């Protein structure tokens, strides 16, 4: 094992101080001379035909400047994303409540808000559809193409239906999950600043500065080299700042071009709720079959995502869900069909887990039912079927050695006292409260995979100044997950530079080439590898020069040179990183390099869904202990045991934070979060009505990492951000089943649903 100085250590976060002390400058904190303020004029109804927009009343508001509509676009009215069905600003039709129809610009935020209220959209209501299953029926209101399907995928392996017919045990269930709101602390916002040459600099809170670049250049008809995107300190993303900041920034840019002044556009919480991306609601029907020995022989899945009014990221969210839909098991026969359906609701998109948590909830709930039918302990049943090194996934991808799933399940089994709980049927009752234990297993393809392969590359720029301070520029963002810190550790390790001397900057689109989005748990892997690529030639220079200096100091160069903690040494002779850098500069050696890393090829075939889907996978196992009030159905998650294989851990403290945050966010989705639409109108678009977990709801955590090296990863790391969230809902649902006897097939697992289930069981004498 290589001895490491910086990687694998809990070094302090680079951005801790500015965030903790309030010095960090978010989008809304930036100010520019002559800056104006924009506000959105929004569609008040689910679907409308627009006949005009009048700012007659807005003109009476003091400080009002301009109305900006699709007519102000300088390029085609198509936001370039996976597809181009989402217009920058609608022309004839607006398709969901809260959609930006136009913008108003004014001297103050207050005047802009008042003008947006005063602006009048002239419209006629159109028939609309809010139910994704109805949207897929023949004769449904036409919202997209001929069939309202934004995307569909298939996986066909073996003969799943035949295998099901011959199975000793079969289970089938229908499951639904509701939206999840990202609830980032910082709402969406952007500032566009016109430049003397007609170009623009755009400051924005985003996970994907290069999506913003694509969109602003397209909307404004500008060449890319006249648009600069600067990522501001980003107050949370979770997927919610993947695609939509590009739309917000384009709107700010159009306002800036029209007025010739810097324009700031900051969303308030309610409009952020109403118009920005969400986790997709889902419907699924899952069927499993097993033979008499408890081996899973067949899996059939139909999975539908409620995509909302425009396709945005739905095709790729759906594809990830498709690939993982059968669960992390060896199954010879798999049939999966999946659809992203158009509805007249807010477009859903990326959210930590990206189409996987929904189907994981369904299939892992059902695996428990299958284990019960086969008369097996849920953990034993899983261990009997789990994927391991050398096994083939549902897509036929043969796994490498970087798969520790069985060890993860064994770890949570041991730590949770699973076998002791088994003696009482995973249920302990005290008074009118019952505790239950439940398990789940999950996996997560790291990076963009076959469907996103064209974007799966990243650049880095490493520059060592004369004073030996180091700046690293990358194309992936810090959004709270710790990227600045982890990437600084990788740079420090590769260069043998003191960690304190390395500074990683927020993304500036002119410093590094398009590095794809900051999503899919890919930043450590992609930007990390790009930094290593960039640092290698500099490292060679540094190490050669260090050896020369040590030789000059009288060291015996036959001995091995040690490079650790920013010091180079042979025996008692030593030189510091600073001394070596100074010498490199005096020798006119190149101390600045670019790196580029492209993900290895994947072989997945879209026709049958067979082939390598992702370059590697991260793995997780969860056990949840819950308490259910048997009279009220009130559910509390008491403890979560999580075990994760994410490859090498670069920063244990940050990894622990990611694990805790992911588990808590997964639990919050599973138990509390319930966004409600009533007749196409969002009914609780605020934190008063939309409930998320607080610190008081936080369960106790027990987190284990089992590091299975990924040879192509930076210092053998894989991806961390998402896998802790995915399996939580199913583990909780399985624990609720154990505690209350009720199988809740719908997320969130509200007390109302658990209570209803208990009432039905009373009537049926416990048979249901």
């Amino acid at each position, binding site marked *: 094992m290589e001895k490491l100085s910086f990687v694998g250590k809990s070094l302090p976060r680079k951005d801790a101080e500015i965030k903790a002390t309030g010095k960090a400058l978010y989008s809304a904190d930036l100010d520019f001379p002559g800056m104006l303020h924009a506000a959105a004029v929004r569609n008040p109804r689910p679907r409308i035909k627009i006949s005009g927009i009048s700012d007659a009343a807005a003109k009476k508001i003091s400080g009002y400047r301009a109305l900006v509509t699709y007519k102000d676009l300088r390029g085609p009215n198509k936001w370039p994303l996976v597809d181009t069905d989402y217009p920058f600003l609608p022309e004839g039709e607006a398709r969901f409540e809260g959609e930006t129809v136009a913008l108003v610009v004014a001297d103050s935020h*207050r005047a802009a*808000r008042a003008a947006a*209220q005063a602006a009048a959209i002239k419209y006629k209501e159109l028939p609309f559809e809010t139910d994704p299953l109805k949207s897929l029926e023949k004769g449904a209101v036409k919202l997209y193409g001929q069939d309202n399907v934004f995307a569909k995928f298939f996986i066909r392996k073996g003969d799943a239906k035949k295998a099901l017919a011959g199975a000793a045990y079969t289970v089938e269930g229908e499951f639904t999950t509701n939206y999840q709101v990202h609830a980032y602390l910082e709402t969406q916002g952007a500032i566009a600043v016109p430049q003397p040459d007609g170009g623009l600099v755009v400051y924005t809170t985003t996970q994907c500065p290069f999506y913003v670049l694509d969109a602003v250049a397209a909307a404004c008809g500008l060449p890319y080299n006249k648009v600069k995107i600067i990522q501001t300190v980003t107050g949370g993303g979770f997927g919610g700042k993947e695609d939509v900041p590009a739309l917000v920034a384009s709107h700010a840019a159009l306002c800036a071009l029209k007025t010739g002044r810097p324009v700031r556009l900051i969303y*308030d*919480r*309610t409009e952020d709720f109403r118009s920005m991306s969400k986790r997709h609601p889902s419907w699924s029907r899952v069927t499993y079959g097993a033979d008499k020995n408890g081996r899973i022989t067949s899996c059939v899945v139909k999975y539908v995502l409620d995509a909302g009014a425009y396709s945005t990221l739905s095709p790729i969210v759906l594809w990830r869900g498709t690939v993982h839909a059968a669960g992390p098991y060896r199954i010879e026969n798999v049939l999966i069909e999946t659809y992203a359906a158009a509805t007249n609701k807010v477009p859903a998109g990326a959210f930590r887990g990206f189409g996987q948590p929904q189907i994981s909830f369904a299939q892992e709930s059902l695996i428990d039912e299958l284990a019960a039918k086969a008369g097996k302990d849920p953990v034993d049943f899983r261990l009997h079927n789990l994927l391991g090194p050398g096994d083939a996934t549902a897509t036929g991808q043969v796994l490498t050695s970087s798969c520790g799933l069985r060890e993860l399940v064994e770890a949570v089994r041991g730590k949770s006292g699973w076998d002791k709980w088994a003696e009482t049927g995973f249920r302990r009752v005290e008074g009118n409260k019952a505790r239950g234990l439940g398990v789940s297993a999950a996996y997560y393809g790291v990076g963009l995979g076959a469907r996103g392969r064209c974007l799966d590359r990243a650049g880095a720029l490493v520059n060592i100044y004369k004073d030996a301070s180091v700046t690293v520029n990358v194309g992936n963002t810090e959004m709270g997950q710790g990227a600045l810190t982890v990437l600084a550790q990788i740079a420090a390790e590769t260069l043998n530079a003191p960690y304190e001397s390395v500074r990683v900057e927020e993304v500036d689109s002119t410093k590094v080439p398009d590095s794809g989005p900051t999503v899919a748990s890919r930043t450590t892997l992609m930007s990390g590898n790009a930094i290593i690529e960039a640092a290698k030639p500099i490292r060679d220079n540094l190490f050669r020069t260090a050896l020369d200096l040590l030789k000059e100091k009288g060291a015996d160069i036959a001995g091995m040179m040690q490079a650790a903690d920013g010091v180079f040494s042979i025996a008692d002779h030593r030189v510091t990183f600073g001394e070596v850098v100074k010498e490199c500069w005096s020798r006119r050696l190149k101390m600045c390099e670019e790196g580029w890393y492209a993900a290895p090829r994947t072989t997945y075939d879209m026709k049958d869904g067979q082939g390598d889907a992702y370059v590697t996978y991260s793995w997780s196992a969860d056990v949840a202990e819950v308490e259910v009030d048997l*009279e*009220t*159905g*009130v559910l*509390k998650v008491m403890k979560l045991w999580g075990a994760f294989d994410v490859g090498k851990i670069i920063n244990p403290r940050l990894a622990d934070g990611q694990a805790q945050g992911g588990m808590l966010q997964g639990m919050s989705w599973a138990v*509390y979060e*319930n966004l*409600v639409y009533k007749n196409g109108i969002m*009914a*609780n678009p*605020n934190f*008063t*009505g939309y*409930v998320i*977990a*607080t610190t*008081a*709801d936080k369960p106790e955590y027990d987190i284990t990492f089992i590091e299975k090296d990924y040879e192509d990863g930076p210092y053998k790391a894989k991806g961390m951000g998402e896998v802790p969230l995915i399996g939580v809902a199913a583990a909780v649902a399985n624990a609720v089943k154990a505690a209350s006897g009720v199988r809740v097939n719908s997320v969130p697992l509200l*007390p*109302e649903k658990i*209570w*209803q289930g208990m*009432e039905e069981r009373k009537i049926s004498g416990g048979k249901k």
Partner: protein
Amino acid sequence: MRPELLVRPSSLAHLWKTLPSLPRDRRYLAGGTDLMIAASHGHAGDCWVDISGLKELRSFRETPSSLFIGSGLTISALAEMPAVKKWLPALALAAPHYASPSLRNMATIGGNAANGSPCADGVCALCSEKASIVLLLKGVKRKLPLPAFFLGPKRTALRKDELILGFEVPKWRHVSAYEKLGPRSYFGISKVSVCVSAEISGGVVKETVISCASVAPVPLMARKAAEFLYGRRLDEGTISEAAALAESEASPITDTRSEAGYRKAMVRVLAARALAKIAAA
């Protein structure tokens, strides 16, 4: 959004003098915890009259037979008062269920009533304490039993510019229990709350007041259940029957927070739990 105009009268006399000169679309600002939310939805008017500095609204007086609670007292201030702990056990028990510590430091008991919400924890508790509400308009006082103050969701008996001076609560020897179902462990608006105050003498119920939150258009007084309990021992059968009566009196709705059927059933569960706690006290 912030209001166009914020005025801060220095005394009640100053307030009444200033009011005629102010825009018609004016609202009182006390703790601001509800008003700020209304403001973010654009429903809080152009002019706020800040009454948080008025000493006259922050009085607390104790007489041999009653307590007077100024409307401007915050929830956290009230929760710490020895007289509240001694004489108003329902209010003391409800306080920890009330929003969050930071909101309790800001929010006033008067504002909790003025907001007119059927889910208000402070109001629900005061109703079971047999409180009256004292209103004031330009020096003219009137007093209503607290339940009569509420006319419907967000509708109260307050007249234009009238404000809440405070609450008059009789001293009576009772024990209370406060049971709340919120959406999470704490810091949530109730799906259902049931508050019971009872005076038990010689093992039988002498007097009971049962108030419920979030299960009717206004804070609900479960009078049939309370009357049923008069003169009875709080045994299991009695508790069960009273709880069923309370359930029958509730008329909840389905909204984004919960479902009508569940809420109704939970009135029975919470009422039974509250009564059992009182029986055990």
